[in-house]
C-alpha cells in the first residue's frame, strides 16, 4: 500500500514538472490595431511592465536606454521598462524554444533586432505585426529610403520599426597610418608591407567586411542585390577566399585565429597590436574617442569601393504580454526628441531613421548640429558609397565558408 502511495506521488510530481515546462500561463489578449485608437493604447500601456531584450555590450547604449529612455517612459506614460541582456541569436533561440515548448506568453515584449535576426524571426513566424502603421511617429520616418524600408533585401512590411541607421566604416590611427588603403589591391599591398598589423573579427562586423569585399569582387553597386543566388555566390566567393588566403599569412597572428568579435578587435587596436579597427556604425569613432577609449588621432573612413549601410529595428514578439506598452515605448524611441539625443556623439552617435528635412522646426537645425562629428566624415559625404545589405543567406554562407575555407583549412 505504502509503495503504491509514493509511486502515485512521484507520478504527480513528474506531471507537475512536465506541466510546468509546457504551459506558460494564459495567452495574452489579442491586440487588434485596427479596432483600437492610439489613445486607448496609451491608456492600456499605463502601469504595464515592458520587458525589453537587447544587446547590452556598449556602455553608451546602456546609459541612453537606462538613464534616459526608461525614466522618460515612466514619467510620461507610467511604463516600467525592464531591460535584459540578449543578443540576436539568443533572442531567436529563446523565442524558438518558447514556440517549441508551446509557451502562451513570451519572456519579453520588445526586442532590438537586426537584419539576420529579422529574417530568422520571420522564418519561425515569431513577430507581431504589422504594427508600424499604428505608431503616430511613423509620419517622421524616412520610409522612402531603400536602406530603411528593406532589411537584408526583405521588406519590413510593418513587422519591425526602424530605430537607427548606420554605415560601416574602417577606423585607423592617423599617427600610425597616414594614408589608409582604399582598394582591395592597396589593402593587399599594405598588409604585406605591415605583417601582423591588420585583421578583422569572426563575428558580425568581420563578416560584414567580407560581404563588402564580396560585393566589390562581384562588380560593386547592386551586383548582388535581390534574392540569394547560389551559383553567383559560389563564383564570387571563390575569388574572395583566394584573396583572403593571399592576405592571411600577413594578418594578425598569421591569420591562424581572428578576434572573436569587434570589441576584441577594438582592444587590439587600442593596445597597439593592430593599426586598423572597424565598426558597423560610422559614428562610433567619435563616441569612443569621447569616452577616452580610442586615441584622439583616430579617423573613420569608407574605402573607395564603398561600405554597407544597415538599419536596426524594434520588433514585438507575437506572444508578448504587454504589447500596448511596447508600442508606446517604440513610438517614443522614434520621436524626434529621442532620435536627436541618440544621434549626439557624446550620447551614442547612432544615425537617425527620421526624414530630418521634413521635421517641424526647430528639429532640422538641431539634427544638423548633433550630426556634426570630428573623427568621421559627414554622413552625406559617404552616402554615395553606401552598399545595400545582401540577402541573409549570403551572411549564413559567409559564416560557414569562412570557417571551412580560412579558419580550418
Amino acid at each position, binding site marked *: 500500500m505504502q509503495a503504491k502511495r509514493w509511486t502515485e506521488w512521484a507520478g504527480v510530481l513528474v506531471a507537475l514538472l512536465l506541466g510546468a515546462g509546457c504551459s506558460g500561463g494564459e495567452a495574452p489578449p489579442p491586440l487588434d490595431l485596427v479596432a483600437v485608437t492610439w489613445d486607448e493604447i496609451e491608456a492600456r500601456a499605463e502601469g504595464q511592465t515592458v520587458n525589453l531584450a537587447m544587446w547590452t555590450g556598449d556602455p553608451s547604449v546602456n546609459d541612453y536606454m537606462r538613464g534616459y529612455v526608461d525614466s522618460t517612459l515612466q514619467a510620461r506614460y507610467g511604463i516600467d521598462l525592464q531591460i535584459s541582456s540578449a543578443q540576436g*541569436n539568443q533572442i531567436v533561440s529563446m523565442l524558438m524554444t518558447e514556440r517549441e515548448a508551446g509557451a502562451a506568453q513570451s519572456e519579453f515584449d520588445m526586442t532590438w533586432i537586426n537584419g539576420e535576426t529579422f529574417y530568422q524571426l520571420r*522564418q519561425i513566424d515569431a513577430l507581431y505585426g504589422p504594427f508600424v502603421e499604428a505608431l503616430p511617429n511613423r509620419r517622421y520616418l524616412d520610409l522612402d529610403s531603400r536602406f530603411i524600408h528593406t532589411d537584408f533585401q526583405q521588406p519590413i512590411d510593418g513587422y519591425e520599426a526602424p530605430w537607427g541607421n548606420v554605415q560601416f566604416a574602417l577606423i585607423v590611427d592617423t599617427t600610425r597610418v597616414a594614408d589608409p588603403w582604399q582598394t582591395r589591391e592597396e589593402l593587399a599591398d599594405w598588409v604585406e608591407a605591415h605583417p601582423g598589423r591588420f585583421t578583422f573579427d569572426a563575428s558580425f562586423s568581420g563578416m560584414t567586411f567580407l560581404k563588402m569585399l564580396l560585393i566589390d569582387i562581384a562588380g560593386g553597386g547592386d551586383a548582388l542585390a535581390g534574392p540569394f543566388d547560389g551559383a553567383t555566390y559560389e563564383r564570387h566567393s571563390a575569388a574572395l577566399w583566394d584573396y583572403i588566403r593571399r592576405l592571411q599569412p600577413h594578418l594578425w597572428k598569421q591569420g591562424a*585565429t*581572428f578576434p572573436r568579435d569587434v570589441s576584441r578587435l577594438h582592444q587590439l587596436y587600442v*593596445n597597439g*597590436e593592430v593599426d586598423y579597427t572597424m565598426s558597423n556604425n560610422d559614428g562610433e569613432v567619435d563616441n569612443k574617442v569621447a569616452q577616452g577609449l580610442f586615441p584622439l588621432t583616430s579617423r573613420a573612413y569608407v574605402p573607395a569601393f564603398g561600405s554597407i549601410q544597415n538599419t536596426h529595428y524594434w520588433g514585438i514578439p507575437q506572444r508578448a504580454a504587454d504589447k500596448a506598452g511596447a508600442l508606446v515605448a517604440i513610438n517614443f524611441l522614434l520621436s524626434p526628441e529621442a532620435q536627436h539625443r541618440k544621434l549626439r556623439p557624446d550620447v551614442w552617435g547612432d544615425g537617425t531613421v527620421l526624414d530630418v528635412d521634413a521635421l517641424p522646426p526647430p528639429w532640422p537645425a538641431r539634427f544638423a548640429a548633433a550630426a556634426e562629428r570630428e573623427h568621421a566624415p559627414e554622413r552625406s559625404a559617404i552616402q554615395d558609397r553606401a552598399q545595400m545589405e545582401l540577402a541573409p543567406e549570403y551572411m549564413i554562407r559567409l*559564416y560557414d565558408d569562412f570557417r571551412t575555407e580560412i579558419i580550418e583549412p
Partner: protein
Amino acid sequence: MSEGREPVLHPPSASAPPGPPDAGGARASAAQRLRRLVGGDGIGAVGLVLFVTIAVLPIAVSLGYALLYSIGAVGLLSDGLTGAHWQVLVQEAEIWRAFGWSLYIAGATVLLAISLALALALGLHRPLSEGPLSTIIYLPLAIPGTVAAFLVFQLFSGAGWMARVALTLGLIDTPAQFPDLVQDPWGIGIIAAHVGLAVPFFVLLFGQIYESERVRSLMELAATLGASRSQRLYRIAVPILLKRAFTNVLLLFVAVLGSYEIPLLLDQQSPQMLSVLTMRKYGLYDLADKPEAFIIALLYTALVGVVIALAFRYGHDAYDV
C-alpha cells in the same frame, strides 16, 4: 565521494549494505523490491522521489528532447523524422577535432594541476598548514573562471603585462614578437587558467588527506623499516593522496572537459572546445544547424559517461597499496 571514509591500507570490506532481510527472494514483486531499495521507511522513499525528480528526471527529459530534436521528431523547422543531421555531423572533421581538443585540454590540465599540487602539498606541507601561506592559499578559490581567464589574458596576450615587461627589457620590439600564449595553437592560455584554478584546491585537499591519513607517521614508519626517501614518496605518500582524491581528480577532468567561459575567452577559432562549439552551433544564424548542437551535446554526454564508467572500473584501484 562516500568511498573516502574507508581505510585505504586495508582491502575494502565486502559486507552488504544494511537493509531488511530478504523475504520474497526472486519472486518479490516490483513494489517489494522498490520498498527494499529505499529501506522500507517513508524517509527513504521521499529521498528517492526527490532524487529522481530533481536529479534524474530533468536530465533524462533533456537528453530525450535532445535526441528527438536531433532526429527531427520535434523542432519548429523540422520536416519530419530524419537521420540527415547525424549523417552530416559525424562526417564533420570539426566535431572530432573538438572532441580530441577537449580531451587534450582536460588531460593536460589534470596532469599539470595534480603534479603541481602534489609537489606543493608534499614539499610545502609545513608552511601550508601554519603561517600566512595557509591563509593565502585559500584566496584563489574565490576567483571565478571568467576572472581567471581574464587575468590570463591580461598577463599573457600580445599587449599584456608580460609583453610590456619584455618590451621594457628590450626582448621584443612589437606585440607580434611576444610568443603566443593566449589564443594559441597549444591551448596554453586555457590550460594555464584551469591549472591556476585547480592547484590551490588540490593543494588543500592533499594537505587534509595528508593529515587525516597520517601520511607522515606512515612515512616515518617506512623509514624505520629502511625505505629510501623516494620510496617513501612514490610508494606511500603519492599513492595514498591520489587514491583518496581519485573522485575529485575525475571531477576536475570532467569539469575541464565541459568548461565554457575560459575557452570562450582564450581559445582560437579552431579547434574549439565542446561547449563553445555546441553554443556556436546552437546560436548560429543558420537555424538548420540547431539539431547539430543537440547531437554534440548527446555525444558529449556519452563521452563523459564512458570516461566515468572506465575510470571507476579500472582507475579506482590503480593506486591501491
